[in-house]
């Protein structure tokens, strides 16, 4: 039993954006336990007003530098839903391929650079250049692959250029797609090495679990990333679905004093989004190679350990490569055609959902008769996780106190928990601090 503890982590490192953790333990009692999000708010929903429909995705892409492909796609799909645009099958396939590139790219960054150092007791990836040189070069190679893969389809990975309302402004050539296919195939040994690295570190992942509602997209045609309906998986495995247009009924946003990001809840006090939420909702649709990885890591749905979100990301990395090989095969078989972007059929209101690396993302817009934006609403996955992180803290801290953990161990356990969610706080607005007062 820990009697006194005070944890103050100011600007938590190795997460996207800024957040704080404050925990106080006095006489063996937890007197304070809080996840705070004081990121500087940026007001994107106000900034899209008065933008032409061709500019809106350019603006909202800038919500997040890591998931800018996902924001672009969610924005384009919502704009297309508002404008009665139905994209071609080729556009749909290319966008799915682009979405896989982002998930792969972001997960590689998180697994290797942000999460792994904790498990080997290093402050960052930099000292590992000397001690684990092979692992670091493998990580940098995979990161570069994700970047080139996304750039080929989207023009670039940070704020893609070629994805526009109604389609693409330019296309990769068949030769370039074939070259990408070859690169993905040649990355298989690096993927195997990644799984080995994660499996070797897995025993160091804390054993913690809390019954949680998991929300993710569910798509009939594939493991939901680019499209689908909203799906909820309860702790007992019960599932229910809603159309994306009902997203406000599921997310129920509200404002709390310790955060500039809004919080959300559905059936319980809070819910989780992200790789683990997708894994729990759509496990059966994972590529067989990815399911093998899950088995090797000892994971099966419904998994209620938030620390294993990082392991679920490793499963998805493998899934994305194999699924993309299939998508490229399909595109090459059909042959690439020059297609002008589909034009608007009407101007109105529409919503869309996309899975970004950190979870389910919603965009909604309304346009006037000149195609100028009247309103926008964006609900970001990290917002949907803030409440869940808070509830995890409230269960975890008393467990750590009971186990007699010291301040340093407590701090690390809490930091690792937040990192496992791979939060994107600039997205949700931006910040994090662990604080313990004595």
């Amino acid at each position, binding site marked *: 039993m820990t009697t006194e503890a005070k944890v103050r982590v*100011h600007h938590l*490192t*190795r*997460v*996207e*954006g800024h*957040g*704080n953790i404050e925990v106080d333990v006095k006489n063996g009692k937890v007197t304070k336990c809080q996840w*705070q999000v*004081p990121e*500087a*708010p*940026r*007001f994107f929903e*106000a*900034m899209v*007003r*008065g*933008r*032409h429909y061709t*500019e809106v995705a*350019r*603006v909202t892409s*800038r*919500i997040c*530098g*890591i998931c*800018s492909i996902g924001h672009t796609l969610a924005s384009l799909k919502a704009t297309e839903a508002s404008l009665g645009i139905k994209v071609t099958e080729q556009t749909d396939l290319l966008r799915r391929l682009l979405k896989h590139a982002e998930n792969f790219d972001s997960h590689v*960054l998180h697994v290797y*650079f*942000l999460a792994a150092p904790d498990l080997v007791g290093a402050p*960052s*990836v*930099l000292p590992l*250049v000397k001690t684990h040189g092979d692992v*670091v*070069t493998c990580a*940098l*190679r995979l*990161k*570069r692959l994700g*970047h080139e893969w996304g750039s080929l389809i989207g023009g*670039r*990975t*940070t*704020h893609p*250029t*070629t994805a*526009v309302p109604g389609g693409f*402004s*330019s296309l990769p050539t068949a030769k370039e797609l074939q070259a990408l296919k070859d690169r993905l195939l040649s990355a298989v040994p690096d993927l195997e090495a990644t799984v080995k690295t994660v499996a070797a570190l897995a025993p160091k992942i804390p054993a913690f679990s809390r019954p949680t509602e998991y929300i993710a997209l569910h798509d009939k045609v594939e493991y939901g990333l680019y499209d689908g309906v909203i799906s909820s998986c309860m702790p007992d495995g019960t599932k229910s679905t809603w159309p994306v247009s009902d997203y406000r009924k599921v997310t129920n946003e509200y*404002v709390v*004093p310790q955060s*500039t990001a809004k919080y959300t809840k559905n059936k319980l006090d809070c819910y989780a989004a992200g790789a683990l939420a997708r894994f729990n909702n759509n496990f059966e649709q994972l590529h067989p190679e990815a399911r093998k990885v899950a088995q090797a890591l000892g994971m099966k749905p419904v998994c209620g350990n938030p620390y294993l979100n990082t392991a679920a990301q490793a499963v998805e990395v493998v899934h994305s490569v194999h699924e993309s090989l299939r998508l490229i095969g399909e595109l090459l078989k059909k042959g690439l055609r020059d297609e002008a972007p589909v034009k608007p059929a009407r101007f109105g209101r529409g919503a869309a959902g996309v899975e970004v690396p950190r979870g389910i993302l919603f965009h909604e817009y309304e346009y006037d008769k000149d195609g*100028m934006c009247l309103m926008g609403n964006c609900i970001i996955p990290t917002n949907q996780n803030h409440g869940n992180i808070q509830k995890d803290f409230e269960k975890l801290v008393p467990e750590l106190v009971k186990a007699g953990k010291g301040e340093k161990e407590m701090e690390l356990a809490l930091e690792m928990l937040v990192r496992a969610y791979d939060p994107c706080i*600039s*997205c949700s607005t*931006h*910040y994090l*601090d662990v604080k313990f007062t004595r």
Partner: protein
Amino acid sequence: MPKAKAAFFDFACCEGCQIEMTNFGDAAFLELLNHIEIVEFREAISEKTTEPIDVAFIEGSFTREADRARLEDIRRRAKIVIAYGQCATTAGINALKNHQKDYKECVYGKDAGMPHLDSAQALPISAAIKVDYNAYGCPVNKYEVLQIVSHLLHGKEPVIPNHPVCVECKRRETVCRYHEGDHCLGQVARAGCGAPCPAAGIPCEACRGFVDHPNEAALKKVLKEKAGFSERRADGKTLMWTANQRGTSTPKHDAKTPALTAPQGGKQ
């Protein structure tokens, strides 16, 4: 020769520019580490420093007075300050809210009055401290950053482009967007990106801001006459990444606007 100590800092932004720094691939990244020592980079490493640094890279906009002290501390410790990315150099897309009065109510509704949700004008880093070099772009061109670093390591003065994007389109023989019946801001947009957007079939949005002394009136005229824009759309178009570069007045934080009161999360 000891390695130059470099540190990366971020303010209000999407952090996409720092993500670009992870996209060099293994060869270039590991080579860079042979020349600079990264002593602080919150998103990537847990190491932190209070020591003097040779080069400070600052990303993001100055949006609240509460951040001024942190910026001044960085300036005191750093020999060279580089603002990188558009949020840091001109306040970029963040400045889109600067010409709106109701942005808080629009996003937070009835909760807009809560003190922790306050936010002032979005300004460039140079509004708070002296900046030695600007690396423009949304996102920044990672090779341009590498070039600036390389110049500084060799004791050379980095060249920051101040010619319009049109020059780069001509150089790569891209057909003008106006000839395709589209519009473009390349005439007055700052180059240095290599003009990838018109080459990919989309207009330049001036994500690196304007060149010095842009002819805004002519831009608006061209947008209306050549691209058929309405007055309203031609006005709005030039705001996307250039809201702080319009007209002659430099925006400042209004002294009456309260700063964000609890940025460090210490207060309830």
